[in-house]
């Protein structure tokens, strides 16, 4: 059972990569992946909240009584989400406006709560940090991959730079809501193909 530190990190990047392998945190995945910039910003915010809440939960795991643990986790997570919100408002205001309510909604992102409950509450601080970093990085990679696909096809740009000649007709379907669902579904199918499930 005992995994090395590296294994704890790497599992978040492929074996248990959210949101593909663990089907958690779908709402932000669908909503913010209209452009690579948004996807990346959201990913970084989630990494920060995930690592910080994992640290605190793991430090307090002997103090928090099991019966009210979920409430405690939520309060801890909400604290860090407010930190992210205020920092973004100060230093990345345009991004803060585009991500909108999805920043405060990190509180109810199942990935963060799920890792607190399933991992940090049972493991030491170092492992929890590594787990948070791995899962967060995996989530960011997924977001960037989905948003790259959607932005390139739907808008003809990548991170705001155009990649196609001007004659290219953007496939607008991809950046609208239906495209998000279909795109994620097909990518999930690809992941299953690659993993020989």
């Amino acid at each position: 059972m005992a995994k090395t530190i590296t294994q704890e990190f790497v599992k978040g990047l492929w074996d248990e990569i959210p949101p593909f392998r663990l089907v958690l945190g779908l709402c932000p995945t669908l909503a913010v992946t209209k452009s690579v910039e948004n996807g990346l910003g959201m990913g970084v915010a989630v990494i920060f909240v995930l690592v910080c809440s994992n640290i605190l939960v793991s430090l307090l795991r002997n103090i928090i009584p099991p019966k009210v643990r979920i409430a405690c986790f939520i309060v801890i997570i909400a604290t860090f989400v407010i930190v992210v919100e205020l920092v973004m408002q100060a230093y990345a205001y345009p991004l803060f406006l585009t991500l909108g309510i999805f920043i405060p909604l990190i509180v109810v992102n199942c990935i963060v709560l799920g890792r607190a409950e399933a991992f940090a509450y049972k493991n030491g601080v170092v492992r929890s940090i590594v787990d948070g970093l791995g899962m967060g990085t995996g989530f960011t990679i997924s977001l960037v991959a989905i948003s790259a696909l959607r932005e390139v096809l739907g808008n003809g740009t990548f991170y705001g730079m155009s990649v196609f000649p001007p004659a290219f007709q953007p496939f607008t379907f991809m950046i609208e809501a239906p495209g998000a669902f279909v795109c994620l579904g097909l990518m999930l199918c690809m992941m299953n193909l690659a993993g020989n499930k």
Partner: protein
Amino acid sequence: MGDYILLAISCILVNNIVLAQYLGMCPFLGTSKKMETAIGMAMAVIFVLVLAGSITWLIQAYILKPFGLEYLRTIAFIIVIASLVQFVELFLKKSIPALYKGLGIFLPLITTNCAVMGVCLININEEYTFVQSLVTSFSYAAGFGLVLVLFAGVRERILLARVPKQLEDTAIGLVTAGLFALAFFAFKGMA
């Protein structure tokens, strides 16, 4: 009155919470495998969302705003929603056991349903009045229930169809949801 009806229609169909605002995806995919669970979840969400929508509006207007504590909104709202769900659970268990049994395990799950928190935040961001907030809360929840029940019906049929192995379960669910979203996209022309 007409304004409220227009607002309700726009929340249920045009800006549907799941298909246009991408909120509440987890319960949407998680509880839509069976019709019964879908109906249970839909009822529970309508019930809690109307309560949560009105209470968070009052908290924002009478506590957070006058004291300049708006930066605490996220933590205040999530605590209110979590305790509200707990309270509703206890209350129903004592006084309306039939309804409690019907909603079952879906009540506690609502705490992490981002549709609830999301609608409360939308109400504040759009600066709706109290009555408008009530209308939007109810209609967003009704829209969620409508789509969830429709989707559960389709998913029960998919179970009978032959689906490629790699597309099974969530993947086909997402693609189907995409087609649903496309259908609901047509309502945008109404607005």
